[in-house]
C-alpha cells in the first residue's frame, strides 16, 4: 500500500472512530476514566480547525469568550483558538472575564507539590516537585538523575502524566512513521488474547504445538480430509485438538503482528529480539506500550492491549493528550467531580435505575452533581481547537518546544455548583464492600473461592443543605490475608484488618516516605542500579520513597483517631492511610495491608482538592532522620531517609469513616494470630506472637527509628 493510500486509510479510520464518539480511543475497557456526561451547552463551540481552511468555513457562532489578540509579555500570555485560528491573548484580561488559565507548560506540577511559605515568609521547599517535573519531561529518573538520551518514562499509570513537550515529540515522530500499514489488524484482532509463557515453558509449548500439528496432519491425510475442519467434522475425537491447534496458530499469527507494531512504534529494537519468542526485550516493549497507552496489564497480551495496538498511532496519542489535558483541567479548576459519584448511590432495586447523585440549590431545585472534570476537559479541548488527532498534530507543529515554557490556555470552565467554597464541609467514607474473614485455603492447601459482589470504594461527600452530596466514588482497597515474615524468620499468613469506624485526616503528605518495618527482608532492601557508568549494589529506596513507587504512592492522608485527653485532643495513629499507589492493578480486586489505595493521579487530585477547599496550614518538609545500617552479602549498607515528606495540616481535621461493609462467610471477626501456610513444614512448633502495633500495618506506622544522625541531617 502506498503512503498516500495508507494515510487515507488512517484518516478514514480516525474519522470513523471520531464519528463513533471516539470513546474507543479515549476510554476503552481497562482505563481509569469514569463515565462522562456530554459537554454542557455553555461549553464553547468547537471552532473550525485550521487544517481545513480550504473548505468553506461554517458560519461562525458568536464566541463571547474570545479575547482580542494581545502582544503581552510571556508571563501574561495565554492562547485561544477562535474560529479555527489560534491567537495570543492577555491572561490578566482573561481572568477578569472569568476565564480559567490552564497551565500547559512543561514546568507544571499539581498544587500539592508546590513549595510552601512559612509564617515568616521563608520558602518551604517541596523537593519532589523537581523530580515530578523531570519525570514528566523524560529528563530524569525517579531519583532525579538524568535519563540517558533516548530513554523514556511512561508513568501515566503511576500518576505522572507526560508533559506537552513529550507528547509533542510523540505526535511528530508518529506522524512521520510509515510502517503502520505493515501491521495486519485483522490478524491482530482475530484472537481474544495471546497466551504467553516463561522461557522454558514457551519452548515446551512450541514443541507441543509442532507435534500436535504433525499428528493432526497425519490424521487428516489418513482420513482423506481436505482440511483440519473437515477432519474434526468427520471424526469428533479430533475436534478438541483441532480447535486448540487453530487457536494457537491464530495467536502465533497475531503475535507476529504485535512484534511488527512494537518495532514500528519504536518500542522494540528488532535486532535485540528473537522473532516468535516472548523474550525480555519484547516483554519490556509490551509493558512500555501498555503504560504509554494506559492499558491495565503487566505485559500480558490481553484483548485491551491488542485493541490498542490495532488503533492508529496518532489515535492513541490523541487519547493520551485528552487524558493529559483532563489532569491539567482538573487541577486548574480545583475540582474533583469526574462523573464517578453515581457509584456512591444506592444500587438499583426492583427494576428502578440507580438514582443520580444530586444536590439542592438555594431555590430548592434538585440538580445532578456534574462531571466537572469531563466538562472542563471538553471545554479545554474545544478552546484549543482539538477535535481530532490531525488538529492536535497541527497544534504541536505550530508550537516549537520552547513555547511550552510558558503556554497557557484561557478557557471558560463550567460554573461551579453552589456547594463550592473555600471551606467546604467535606467528609470521606470508605465502604469496605463484601468482606471475607475466613482463611482462604482449605486444609489441603486448595484455594477456597471468596467471591465479592461489592468491592471497596472510596467516596468523598460534601455536606450541603442537610444532605450528604457525593462528589466522587472510586475503587480502593482494604486489608486481607497477606504473607508476613514473623520473628522466628518464617512466613505465615496473617489477616491485615482495615480499621472500621470514625477517624480524621489531620495531616496530608505529599511525596510521603514509608518506613520498612524491621521485619522487612533485607534482600528486598538492596538492588543493583546503573550509577555513573557502573552497576553497583545500592540501597533500594523504591518502596520507601519519596517517589511514585513508594508504598504510600505520591500522596497520603493519615487516618488518626481523635480522643479527648484532659483539656485537649490527642491523635492516635494505627498505621492506616488513604494513599496513592503504584500497584495500579491492585485496585482491581486485590488486597492491601490495611490501607486504602487509590490510583496515584486520583489521590493527587483528591488531596490537592481538599487543600484548596479546606483550611490548611503548610508545615513543609518534616524531619525524619531515619537511618538503618545492615549487613548484606559481605558489605555494609546504610538506608538514610532524612525526610518524612512535605506535610500539610488540616484545621479542623477532615472526618473519614470506614464502614464495616458486609461480612460474608463464616468468620465474623478477623483473626489476629498468624496462620501457618498449608503444605509448608515449619521448624518451630509454636506459633510466634503477631505484633499488634501500627508498625505491623501497611504504613509501618510512620514512626521513626531515630538514628545517630539526630533529627535533621
Amino acid at each position, binding site marked *: 500500500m502506498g503512503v498516500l493510500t495508507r494515510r487515507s486509510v488512517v484518516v478514514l479510520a480516525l474519522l470513523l472512530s471520531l464519528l463513533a464518539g471516539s470513546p474507543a480511543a479515549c476510554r476503552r475497557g481497562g482505563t481509569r476514566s469514569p463515565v462522562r456526561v456530554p459537554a454542557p451547552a455553555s461549553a464553547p463551540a468547537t471552532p473550525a480547525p485550521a487544517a481545513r481552511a480550504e473548505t468553506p468555513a461554517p458560519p461562525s457562532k458568536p464566541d463571547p469568550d474570545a479575547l482580542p489578540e494581545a502582544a503581552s509579555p510571556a508571563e501574561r500570555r495565554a492562547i485561544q483558538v477562535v474560529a479555527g485560528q489560534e491567537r495570543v491573548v492577555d491572561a490578566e484580561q482573561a481572568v477578569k472575564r472569568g476565564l480559567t488559565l490552564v497551565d500547559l507548560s512543561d514546568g507544571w506540577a499539581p498544587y500539592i507539590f508546590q513549595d510552601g511559605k512559612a509564617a515568616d515568609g521563608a520558602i518551604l521547599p517541596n523537593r519532589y516537585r523537581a523530580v515530578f517535573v523531570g519525570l514528566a519531561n523524560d529528563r530524569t529518573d525517579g531519583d532525579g538523575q538524568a535519563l540517558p538520551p533516548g*530513554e523514556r518514562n511512561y508513568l501515566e499509570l503511576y500518576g505522572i502524566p507526560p508533559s506537552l513537550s513529550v507528547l509533542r515529540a510523540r505526535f511528530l515522530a508518529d506522524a512521520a512513521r510509515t510502517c503502520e500499514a505493515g501491521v495486519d489488524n485483522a490478524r491482530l484482532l482475530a484472537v481474544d488474547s495471546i497466551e504467553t509463557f516463561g522461557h522454558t515453558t514457551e519452548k515446551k509449548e512450541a514443541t507441543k504445538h509442532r507435534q500436535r500439528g504433525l499428528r493432526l496432519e497425519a490424521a487428516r491425510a489418513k482420513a482423506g480430509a481436505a482440511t483440519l475442519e473437515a477432519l474434526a467434522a468427520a471424526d469428533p475425537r479430533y475436534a478438541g485438538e483441532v480447535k486448540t491447534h487453530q487457536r494457537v496458530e491464530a495467536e502465533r499469527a497475531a503475535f507476529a503482528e504485535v512484534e511488527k507494531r512494537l518495532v514500528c512504534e519504536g518500542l522494540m529494537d528488532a535486532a535485540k529480539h528473537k522473532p516468535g519468542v516472548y523474550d525480555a526485550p519484547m516483554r519490556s516493549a509490551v509493558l512500555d506500550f501498555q503504560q504509554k497507552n494506559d492499558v491495565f496489564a503487566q*505485559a500480558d497480551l490481553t484483548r485491551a492491549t491488542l485493541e490498542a495496538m490495532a488503533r492508529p498511532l496518532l489515535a492513541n496519542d490523541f487519547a493520551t493528550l485528552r487524558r493529559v489535558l483532563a489532569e491539567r483541567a482538573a487541577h486548574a479548576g480545583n475540582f474533583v467531580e469526574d462523573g464517578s459519584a453515581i457509584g456512591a448511590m444506592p444500587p438499583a432495586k426492583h427494576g428502578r435505575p440507580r438514582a443520580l447523585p444530586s444536590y439542592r440549590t438555594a431555590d430548592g431545585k434538585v440538580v445532578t452533581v456534574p462531571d466537572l472534570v469531563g466538562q472542563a476537559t471538553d471545554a479545554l479541548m474545544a478552546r484549543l481547537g482539538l477535535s481530532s488527532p490531525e488538529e492536535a498534530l497541527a497544534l504541536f507543529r505550530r508550537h516549537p518546544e520552547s513555547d511550552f515554557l510558558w503556554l497557557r490556555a484561557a478557557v471558560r470552565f463550567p460554573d461551579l455548583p453552589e456547594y463550592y467554597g473555600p471551606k467546604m464541609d467535606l467528609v470521606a467514607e470508605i465502604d469496605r464492600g463484601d468482606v471475607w474473614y475466613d*482463611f482462604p485455603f482449605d486444609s489441603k492447601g486448595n484455594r477456597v473461592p471468596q467471591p465479592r459482589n461489592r468491592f471497596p470504594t472510596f467516596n468523598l461527600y460534601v455536606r450541603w443543605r442537610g444532605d450528604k452530596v457525593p462528589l466522587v466514588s472510586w475503587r480502593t482497597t482494604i486489608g486481607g490475608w497477606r504473607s508476613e515474615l514473623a520473628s522466628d524468620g518464617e512466613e505465615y499468613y496473617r489477616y491485615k484488618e482495615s*480499621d472500621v*469506624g470514625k477517624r480524621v485526616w489531620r495531616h496530608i503528605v505529599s511525596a510521603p516516605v514509608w518506613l520498612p518495618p524491621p521485619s522487612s527482608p533485607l534482600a528486598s532492601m538492596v538492588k543493583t542500579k*546503573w550509577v555513573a557508568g*557502573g552497576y553497583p549494589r545500592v540501597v533500594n529506596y523504591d518502596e520507601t520513597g519519596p517517589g511514585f513507587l513508594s508504598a504510600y504512592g505520591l500522596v497520603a492522608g493519615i487516618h488518626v483517631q481523635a480522643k479527648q485527653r484532659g483539656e485537649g485532643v490527642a*491523635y492516635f495513629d494505627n498505621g492506616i492511610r488513604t494513599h496513592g499507589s503504584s500497584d495500579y492493578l*491492585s485496585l482491581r480486586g486485590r488486597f492491601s495491608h490495611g490501607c486504602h489505595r487509590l490510583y496515584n493521579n486520583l489521590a493527587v487530585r483528591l488531596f490537592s482538592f481538599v487543600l484548596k477547599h479546606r483550611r490548611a496550614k503548610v508545615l513543609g518538609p518534616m524531619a525524619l532522620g531515619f537511618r538503618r545500617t545492615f549487613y548484606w552479602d559481605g558489605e555494609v549498607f546504610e538506608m538514610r531517609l532524612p525526610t518524612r515528606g512535605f506535610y500539610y495540616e488540616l484545621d479542623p481535621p477532615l472526618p473519614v469513616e470506614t464502614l464495616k461493609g458486609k461480612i460474608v462467610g463464616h468468620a465474623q471477626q478477623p483473626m489476629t494470630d*498468624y496462620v501457618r501456610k498449608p503444605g509448608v513444614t515449619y521448624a518451630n512448633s509454636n506459633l510466634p506472637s503477631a505484633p499488634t502495633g501500627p508498625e505491623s500495618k501497611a504504613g509501618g506506622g510512620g514512626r521513626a527509628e531515630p538514628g545517630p544522625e539526630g533529627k535533621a541531617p
Partner: protein
Amino acid sequence: MSARVLCPTCLVLTLAVGCRGPSVDHRPTPTADTASTDRVAALSRDSSLHAPASSAPKRESADTMPKAARAAAPASESAKAEDDLQSEEREANPLSEMVTLTLSISPPVKAVVMWGSKQLARIAPDNPTVELQRPRSSGPLDLDIRAEGFLPHHTRLYSDRNDKVNVRLVRPAEATGLLGYRSSGAAAAVKGKTK
C-alpha cells in the same frame, strides 16, 4: 527505548511482603531472560497470597484453620499517639543552584569513595572529610566507601539540600553485631562465598 525495567528484587519482595508494584531501575539490569520472564509473571498476580507450593510436603496443621476464639481486639487499641512532627532544619537559601555535600568517615583511615564506576574522592587519614559541590536536585549520590581492613560501606548523600553524613566504617570482625549478619552470613555460606 524505555527507561523501565522490572525490578530484580521485586519477586523476593513480593513473596515476602506483597508486591506494591514494579520497581524501576533506569538502566537494563543484566539478568537472564528467564528471570525477567518470571518477574513479569510475578507482577501479574497477587503473589502475596500465592497458593502453597505443591511440591512441599503437605500435612494438616492444627493451626492452619482459623478459630473463632482468636477474634481480634478492636484495632484501635493498638494505635499509638501520633509522632511529634519536627520541621527540617531550614537552609539559608533553599533555591541555591548548588548544594554542599559532606562525607566524613571514622575511624580516620585511607579510603576511596566510589560513585558507580567513578572514583569520586580519596580520603586521607589526616582529613577524613570530603566536601562536594553538586547542582541542586541533580539526584542523590549512592556512594561506596572502600578502605583496607574494613567492609565496603554503602551510603547515600542527597542533592536536594545541603547534606552531611558521618560514616562509621565496620571491620569484618565487628560485622557480627550488624542487622542481617546472621541471615546474610548463612546465605553466603550456602552459596560457598568467602567474603
